[in-house]
């Protein structure tokens, strides 16, 4: 009898379980790869391409066919055109069928052939802005109107191949040069950091304060808790416009209140002038995201054992001492996680500033710059270059995030 040995490697059951796991995960992985990972690579690719918004529609050959009577002779006219003004199209192929009753008398252009009633044309290239007419004399048997109708009923088919700027091998560093050119980039980065750092810290402090307020049971506590979450639950677009209207320089209630109370003498254009606009969008970030910090801090506060506080009471600790030496250390974990998460999300935020100021008056953050470059200036390549810069910054933050998260339980 041989010695019994424990099995090595993975058994059939374990392999089957792993297979099942991967097949259950496959749809998610596929979807995420398609919509997150692939676009990320695409952004890197595009950031090295000289591509504008207009290049997204590839150049195509166009044809228009008509039947005219010029003098006494009816003529068939083909008008060939390149849809792009500056890109060429190659290997153009056109085919058309002559309607019954129409027969050619004039000569076809030399790149076309007639085969029965079929006209086929091959053209090697159309340069950008190509636009030519070809007229061929014809005879029409019977009613010319009917022939025209028949002609319009059968449209000619045309196709060609063109060089797609997104897939060809032209690369450029212009996009990055554009991004880093001048002091503009540093200004944008500075605005982004101001917005991110103060928005994050403010939201966390407000969240902490409000959580401490509601960490006791009294009548109406539930109502207040629901109320304090409103800014987070409501659609951003709705509350952003409410802020814009509230702080409007001409008909905003906030300005009217401030003037009436004698705080300012004249109305302030809160979202339209420096440095107010940046301060206001940062305040908006604090306002909009303190509920999240509030919720998490409150959850953590309520899970702290009360024994500790009883012991502290026995030792004669004052309320501030209890906060400083008991509550705060217990909250440190959740607060640091919140800081990292909110820091990254505020850094990524686009909608808020876009809706409040559109990036004007000194509020252009990196994310707004992506939009501005890609859609306002129509330079998709430059937009992608900014996106790459954002992504690299985030990679840095994510490293931090992972180091802290592995130590922090509960999130």
């Amino acid at each position, binding site marked *: 009898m041989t010695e019994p040995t424990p099995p090595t490697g993975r058994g059939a059951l374990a392999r089957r379980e792993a297979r099942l*796991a991967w097949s259950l995960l496959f749809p998610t992985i596929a*979807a*995420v790869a398609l919509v997150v990972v692939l676009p990320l690579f695409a952004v890197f690719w595009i950031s090295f391409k000289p591509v504008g918004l207009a290049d997204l529609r590839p150049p195509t050959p166009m044809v228009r066919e008509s039947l005219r009577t010029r003098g006494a002779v009816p003529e068939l006219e083909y008008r060939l055109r390149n849809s792009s003004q500056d890109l060429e199209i190659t290997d153009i192929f056109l085919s058309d069928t002559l309607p019954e009753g129409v027969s050619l008398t004039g000569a076809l252009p030399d790149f076309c052939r007639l085969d029965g009633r079929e006209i086929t044309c091959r053209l090697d290239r159309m340069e950008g802005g190509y636009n030519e007419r070809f007229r061929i004399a014809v005879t029409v048997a019977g009613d010319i109107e009917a022939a025209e109708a028949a002609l319009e009923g059968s449209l000619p088919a045309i196709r060609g191949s063109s060089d797609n700027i997104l897939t060809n091998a032209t690369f450029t560093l212009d996009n990055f040069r554009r991004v880093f050119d001048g002091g503009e980039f540093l200004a944008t980065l500075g605005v982004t950091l101001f917005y991110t750092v103060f928005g994050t810290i403010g939201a966390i402090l407000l969240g902490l304060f409000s959580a401490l307020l509601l960490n006791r049971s009294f009548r109406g506590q539930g109502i207040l808790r629901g109320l304090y979450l409103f800014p987070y639950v409501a659609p951003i677009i709705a509350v952003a416009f*409410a802020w814009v209207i509230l702080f409007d320089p001409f008909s905003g209630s906030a300005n009217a209140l401030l003037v009436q109370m004698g705080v300012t003498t004249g109305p302030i254009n809160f979202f339209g002038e420096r440095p107010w606009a940046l301060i206001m969008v940062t305040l908006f970030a604090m306002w909009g995201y303190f509920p999240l910090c509030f919720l998490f801090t409150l959850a953590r506060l309520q899970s702290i054992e009360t024994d500790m506080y009883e012991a502290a009471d026995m030792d004669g600790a004052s309320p501030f001492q209890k906060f400083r030496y008991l509550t705060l250390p217990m909250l440190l974990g959740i607060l640091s996680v919140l800081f990292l998460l909110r820091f990254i999300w505020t850094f990524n935020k686009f909608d808020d500033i876009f809706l409040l100021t559109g990036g004007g008056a000194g509020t252009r953050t990196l994310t707004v710059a992506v939009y501005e470059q890609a859609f306002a200036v129509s330079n998709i390549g430059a937009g992608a270059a900014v996106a790459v810069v954002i992504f690299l910054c985030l990679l840095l933050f994510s490293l931090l995030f992972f180091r802290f998260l592995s130590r922090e339980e509960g999130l």
Partner: protein
Amino acid sequence: MTALHRGYIAAPLIAAVWTFVIAITVAVAMSLVTGDAYRPSLTLSALCGAALGWAALALPGGRAVAGLCGAAVLGLTLAGTGPLVTEGAGPAGRLVAGALAGAGIGWPLAHILRAMPRGAMGRHEFEAAVIGLLSGIGYIFFTAIVVIPFYVMVMTSLKNQSELMLNPLDFSIDLSKGWALFRSYGELLTEFNFGLYLWTSFYVSVLTVLITLLFSVPGAYAVARLRFAGRAAFSRSILLIYMVPMIVLALPIYIAFSTTGLRNTILGIVLIYPVTTIPVALYMLQGYFRGLPAEVEEAGLMDGLNRLQVIWRITLPLSLPALASVALYVFMIAWNEFLLAFMLLDDPSKFTLTRGIASLNSSEIPRQHLMAGAVIATVPIMVIFLGLERFMTRGLTAGAVKG
């Protein structure tokens, strides 16, 4: 022991601060409701508050303090002076403002100063009073910053352009107008297609929830229960996806949709929304699945069910509350989503609500329409939120990922 730790110094200081805070609060509230000019006075608040603070120390009981302070403030306000300056307000307005200020100053002040001795006091009494003051300020501050924007949003939608320009503070509602108050809503629903947008937003959100659950339930189960190489790395990298900013992804998605003709289609939106929510749903659900007892599932396996049947017959029924939380959370994200809708939809017949509101933001469209649109988008999500707050709060805590 500093001078602050003496009752006759601390009490007037605290009372003065509190009086000023209440004066500001009542002035802002009355101005925003009536449109009349109410104004807090710093010097009068300080003097008045200090006097009340001293009086509070001298009086025996809390009820007496509250009564005296309330009556004093009410009387002063009626006389047209005191912490609250009421120029141009009628007697009725003064009465309401005085009563509010009196109650707002008297009762909390009695509460804050209840344990304060006249002379020297210990840390405990002092800190308790300061915390009382800070709590009072905190409740007022947070309630004000949350309520005011929503109040302005709703009230603006009920006014018209000329009323708004005339006095931006006048949010009083003329109830005699009846249904005419809701004119902007009617116009939005009839002329601006908002009925259609509501419906589009609704079914896009519901589809997003269904597709998200369809993808994330099996995935979450696999991560939570099944052993495979790379499980730990996988459950972590799910969160990494949330570090990627949407605007970075939106650019290539825009290009891809433009070239494939998916731009301007609801299909494109329904394809893209779930992908943004699947990872967070998966993360939330796997946490919940881990907490379920594995024995029940193993019993099911022993009785001859296969894994899929176990998920369907045992795990899912047990995790209905978690599914509700996730569904609500995903619904909220999809309902509120703006960026992708804004970039991918240009055709007014295919707008979602948020995209529809964005299209109202032009100088030609009066702002009450814009605000009515905002209210139309906010009310459904708020109703859902308030009705199912328990699930929603849990969803928010577990997910915490809206970006």
